């Protein structure tokens, strides 16, 4: 199965481990990923707030236009990118006036988008295209006994509500976790916002939001969190130390991308699980499974 891939900026930097684990896992499942050539930033959750939705969506549409000729579904890892790409794509399909206007702008760069593609979140593609059975079958190292809090985050399920999961009580990520042999603990905060967009401007918001999420994960007995969202991963993982300092708590919950967990379960080589990028060490949690440095 072939996909175009839109990595998004964070996968080149703060979320390197996402890309590094996605590629081998995809390959292991027979998904061929083809990066959109010379893709540009989607504008994240910010551009609209400066130049408005239309300009941002046109900016995003450039990527769609670049991908269209291949005619492949576009796989998006980052939740913000998924929101912008998904909403823009939807608008091209639903709103003829918008499409006309947007193409007028794209024409300046000699581009055009006809709204023929599908934009897919990774979890969506894994569960609905590949399927849980095929994933189960691929598991070489069942994650038996590993208690995982599946942290879906906000935009991945709410950008396009009911596109592939319940926007408030999502289930697919947990199913994926269970397919790997791990135990998905009950996790009421699984779709709560980590406050990411305030990470730089008003860090305390992130700390506060993320602390609640960590607390919920711990109180439900999770030894690890997994997420499909680079911002969630960054905040829960990188800011955990600051959270402990600020609230003098002692959380030590490693946070992996779902693809990293899959790499482990598929027993792929260490660089595929890319654990060295974890700031909160995952090795203690993974020790029972025989995963070491």
């Amino acid at each position, binding site marked *: 199965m072939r996909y175009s891939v839109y990595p998004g900026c964070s996968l080149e930097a703060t979320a390197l481990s996402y890309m590094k684990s996605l590629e081998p896992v995809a390959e292991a499942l027979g998904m061929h990923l083809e990066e959109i050539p010379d893709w540009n930033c989607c504008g994240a959750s910010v551009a609209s707030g400066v130049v408005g939705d239309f300009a941002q969506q046109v900016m995003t549409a450039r990527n769609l236009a670049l991908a269209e000729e291949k005619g492949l579904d576009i796989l998006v890892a980052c939740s913000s990118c998924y929101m912008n790409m998904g909403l823009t794509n939807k608008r091209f399909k639903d709103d003829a006036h918008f499409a006309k206007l947007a193409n007028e702008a794209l024409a300046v760069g000699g581009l055009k988008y006809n709204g023929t593609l599908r934009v897919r979140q990774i979890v969506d593609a894994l569960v609905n295209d590949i399927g849980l059975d095929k994933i189960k079958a691929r598991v070489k190292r069942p994650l038996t006994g590993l208690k995982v809090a599946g942290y879906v985050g906000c935009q991945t399920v709410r950008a396009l*509500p009911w596109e592939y999961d*319940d926007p408030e*009580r999502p289930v697919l990520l947990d199913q994926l976790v269970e397919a790997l042999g791990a135990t998905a603990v009950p996790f009421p905060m699984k779709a709560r916002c980590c406050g990411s967009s305030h990470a730089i401007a008003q860090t305390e918001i992130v700390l506060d939001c993320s602390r609640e999420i960590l607390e919920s994960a711990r109180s439900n007995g999770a030894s690890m969190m997994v997420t499909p969202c680079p911002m969630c991963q960054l905040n829960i993982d990188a800011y955990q130390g600051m959270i402990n300092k600020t609230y003098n708590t002692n959380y030590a919950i490693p946070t992996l991308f779902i693809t990293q967990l899959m790499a482990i379960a598929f027993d792929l080589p260490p660089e595929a699980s890319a654990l060295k990028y974890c700031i909160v060490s995952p090795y203690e949690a993974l020790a029972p499974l025989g995963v070491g440095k």
Partner: protein
Amino acid sequence: MVNNTILVVGGGISGLTTAIEASEVGCEVILVEKNAYLGGKVTQINQYFPKLCPPNCGLEINFKRIKNNPKIKCYTMAEVENISGQEGDFDVTIKINPRYVNENCTACGKCAEACPVERSNDFNYGLDKTKAIYLPHEFAFPAKYVIDPKACAGSGCTKCADVCQYGAIEPAMEAKTVTIKVGSVVWATGWNPYDASKISCYGFGVYPNVISNVMMERMAAVNGPTKGKIVRPSDGKEIKNIAFIQCAGSRDENHIHACSSVCCMASLKQVTYVREQYPDAKIAVYYIDIRARGKHEDFYVKVQNEMNAVFIKGKAGEIKEDPATNDLIVIAEDQINQVLTEEKYDLVVLATGMQPATALSKVPAAMSYDEDGFLASDPASPGIYGAGCVSKPADVAAAVQDATAAALRAIQSVRRRNNG
């Protein structure tokens, strides 16, 4: 040749009314009901607002009117599969599902005593169980037992048949299809409570103590699963603190767009149920607008003055559960006091709205519908008319009024054709 028979589809309060009113004008009427009994949703209601009187009282009169009236022919467990032809001359195919109990049944009840298996009781929204062979409820009309084939132990077990002295049990009974000719059709298949599990933020179906208003009606009814005692489903505990959440799925672009028009009065009524059983319970009602139209305002005023309930202007946004106690925390914006409130309750009742039956199963004829699936008021097919809650969200009085009007339209329809 014009056929003067009127077909009424749906034996709830609207269908019953249309059928009876038309027959008392002198028309031949065929009434088709998919359940094993007539009366539909109102049989599951404890009391009507604002009089707080039992629906069975009016139903008893209506059933008496049917008993005294040879012009009405009733099919229960039946569904209309196809309508063809035109006004004055319709051919209708009706599928009659097997009851597995024939007309010999005297409702003596021996069979149920003997039956070894149980089924979840849909009449009480799954809050209790019946045997696989059961009388839907005490007042069931016709008073005949019925077997749930999904629950029945099947050919291996003949216990009920063995004890029945009247040869009433027919395990081999099969669905049959009959075709009838009628002059006009009134579609009155009514409504269903909106599936509250679609409103993710309220956790219906996830939190045991979040129930819907229709479940509340059963709990408050003496012939209900708790013999009329209002308690927590999770542990059967008494109620100290209860919340009613209005517009749970109504007035909502993500669910039913229209206002369901009855939920406000229904919740006010249910406040009186709770207050009667729990003089000291805390009762809160979360609302956007209280829609007690016309003289119903009196009831609203009465509840405000006498029931000691708190009315919170602000749609309840979210329900959280304490997994240890199954207590619920309702978060809302109290807009009058301009504060966010997080209140704890041991039972939460969702005022789930009315979804027309036609949203899920359409009329097998060319009809037009509105955005929620209600039958549009000007029918695309002449000779076929909607009545009651398939046409609009309505309380009982309004549904009966509409159904009475539908009877006249159906009569006109056949007489108009007679005039040629």
